[in-house]
């Protein structure tokens, strides 16, 4: 168990004539016992980063440290980390018992009886003790997943690395395994790096979330911090479901003018000082339907049971709002909305950098993490 430190980690790939930068000088510290989720759209470099930590990819430059040990040049098998793959990668010719025990058999001098006993303990922990004699192809997806986890757990490694381990499960099983994984990680208290493209999963599982885009680290912080205080437009857009409404608005004194009927008077103009136009962000859950406000034309209403998703037209922009289940405008109906200035996000139109976020919490510090934001 140890802290994992990535220091200006860089990974480039050759692709024909050009060099592709998959991971672009990342600095990241994963604390001892922490569950850190690397999240980002596909191709953002999150899996490559994980594979560098695993030792499956050679890094182009930078260092990786486990605790105080520099492991940058160590091979995967010398790093004492365990990895769970997206497709589980179980050994097809071995039964569950051998699959789980394989790592111990290779990397330790323990007797078969000792290994067997540990395999049984782990299997019991995962509820697969009845499956020990079966081959992977005889198992369901969820069972295969558990075997893959068992294979990682039994090694009692420095760290768990998980590459989208739940993405092949159906929705119900996924949320069940999500909880189980969290409990397991909590009980074992092993530093875990978890890669996913699913921001809901990231929010739900991570002690902290590291949002990546284009090979660079955008922001590291708790789920609440990245949700409430995104450092830029990308993070604001990526985190949150349904995603934030974003559009351009011109600044005229304390007034913002956007597409369609959008007009908003700011009480506090500090964030927009010196700007002629800004990017405006409003989260769907902060939109309130009112009698007199900004007019939008209803396009689709999706009932969710406890609430409704309203998709409406705002001067050619699609606007999403989460509204009460009692609000039932029909397509074509014009409704009015407003929102609190507290809930307004503003971004620099050129750089995407956040000018104002939901609550003025602390900005990420030099070490890349945000302290707990008090809502």
């Amino acid at each position, binding site marked *: 168990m140890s802290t994992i430190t990535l220091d200006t980690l860089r990974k480039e790939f050759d692709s024909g004539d050009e060099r592709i930068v998959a991971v672009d000088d990342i600095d990241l510290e994963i604390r001892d016992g922490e569950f850190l989720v690397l999240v980002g759209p596909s191709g953002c470099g999150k899996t490559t980063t994980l594979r560098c930590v695993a030792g*499956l990819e050679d890094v182009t430059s930078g260092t990786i440290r486990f605790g105080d040990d520099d492991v940058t040049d160590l091979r995967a098998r010398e790093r004492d980390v365990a990895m769970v793959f997206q497709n589980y990668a179980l050994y097809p010719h071995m039964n569950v018992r051998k699959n789980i025990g394989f790592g111990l058999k290779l990397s330790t001098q323990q007797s078969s009886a000792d290994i067997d006993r540990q395999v049984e303990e782990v299997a019991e922990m995962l509820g697969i003790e009845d499956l020990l004699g079966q081959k992977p192809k005889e198992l369901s997806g969820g069972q295969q997943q558990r075997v893959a986890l068992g294979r990682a757990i039994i090694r009692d490694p420095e760290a768990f690395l998980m590459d989208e381990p739940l993405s092949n499960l159906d929705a119900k099983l996924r949320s069940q395994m999500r909880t189980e994984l969290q409990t397991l990680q909590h009980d074992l208290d092993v530093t875990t790096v978890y890669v996913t493209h699913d921001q809901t999963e990231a929010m739900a599982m991570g002690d902290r979330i590291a949002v990546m885009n284009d090979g660079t680290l955008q922001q590291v912080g708790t789920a609440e911090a990245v949700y409430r205080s995104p450092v830029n437009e990308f993070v604001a857009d990526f985190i949150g479901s349904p995603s934030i409404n974003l559009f351009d608005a011109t600044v005229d004194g304390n007034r913002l003018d956007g597409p369609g009927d959008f007009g908003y008077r700011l009480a506090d103009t500090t964030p927009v000082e010196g700007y002629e136009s800004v990017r405006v962000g409003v989260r769907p859950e902060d939109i309130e339907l009112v009698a007199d406000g900004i007019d939008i034309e209803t396009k689709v209403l999706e009932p969710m049971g406890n609430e409704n998703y309203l998709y409406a037209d705002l001067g050619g922009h699609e606007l999403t709002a989460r509204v009460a289940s009692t609000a039932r405008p029909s397509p074509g109906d014009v409704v009015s909305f407003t929102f609190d200035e507290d809930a307004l996000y503003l971004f620099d139109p050129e750089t995407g950098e956040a000018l104002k976020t939901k609550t003025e919490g602390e900005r990420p510090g030099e070490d890349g993490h945000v302290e707990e934001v008090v809502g």
Partner: protein
Amino acid sequence: MREETRREAVWQFLAYAFILLGAVLTLVPLYWIFVASTLDEQEFLSTTEPRLIPGDSFLQNFESLQARGNVQFVGHPGEMTQYVDFGFGYVYYDVWHLWDLGALESSIFVAVVYTLLSLVLCSMAGFAFAKYEFRFKKPMFYAILATLILPIQLLVIPLFLLMSQIGLTNSYWAIILPWAANPLGIFLMRQNMRSIPDALLESARMDGATEFQLYYKIALPTMKSSLAALAIILFLFQWNLFLFPLVILEQGKYTIPVAINQLVGAQRVYYDQIMVAATLSIIPIVVLFLVLQKQFVSGILAGSVKE
């Protein structure tokens, strides 16, 4: 719907008919060889009609085959002469004289050793070509494939010179080593090993496996059915080698094809004996096929990675 099932049935019928035709075309000559081996030479030569009912002269033909002076087909118990005297009794240690090899045993020995050696080399090379990146990988692979177009006839003289230089004339190694790294085998193993998911190997690496353990503990077991298929190809290849063994081996060491060739004399062709020898030479192949048959189950990789 009914139209569809009918069409399916027709296709199935045609497919079976085709397979059946293939089976008949393959089996009839073999059966005919077997029948011919059971006939007296006079019976065999006197009729122009193909016979389908076996005769009763097999053993007689076999005996005359075995009685030949120039070649030994099936071996016989040998005579051990080297022993250690322990006082209470002798213990012979020249066990290689326990059985004097005939052509059949020679062929089996050579083919088995060749097959095992070649399986190891081909699977290792195939694994490297399929799963590793290294300099000049492509040119090397194409160079290996290119050797497939060289006919054995072209190689006989240089190979003979090479073998005599390294002192392997009249040695079984001379017909085993030149083809041990079989290009066709390397190609087949490379193609099949590409289907091993990278994640499977990486997973084993994370579990602490060395690169050799990846090959030995992951790649080989998952490639069982391909290895079985390749084993048959390699065994048959060695079993059928004729020209080079004929050149490099001397009479006492002949393999089956060379030995059979000795039955075609300048004055006379011993059809009855040829047929018996041919029948005998088919048996090991059939046995090998039956043994390996159960390995031809596809889907060993099933359940390894979730698609």
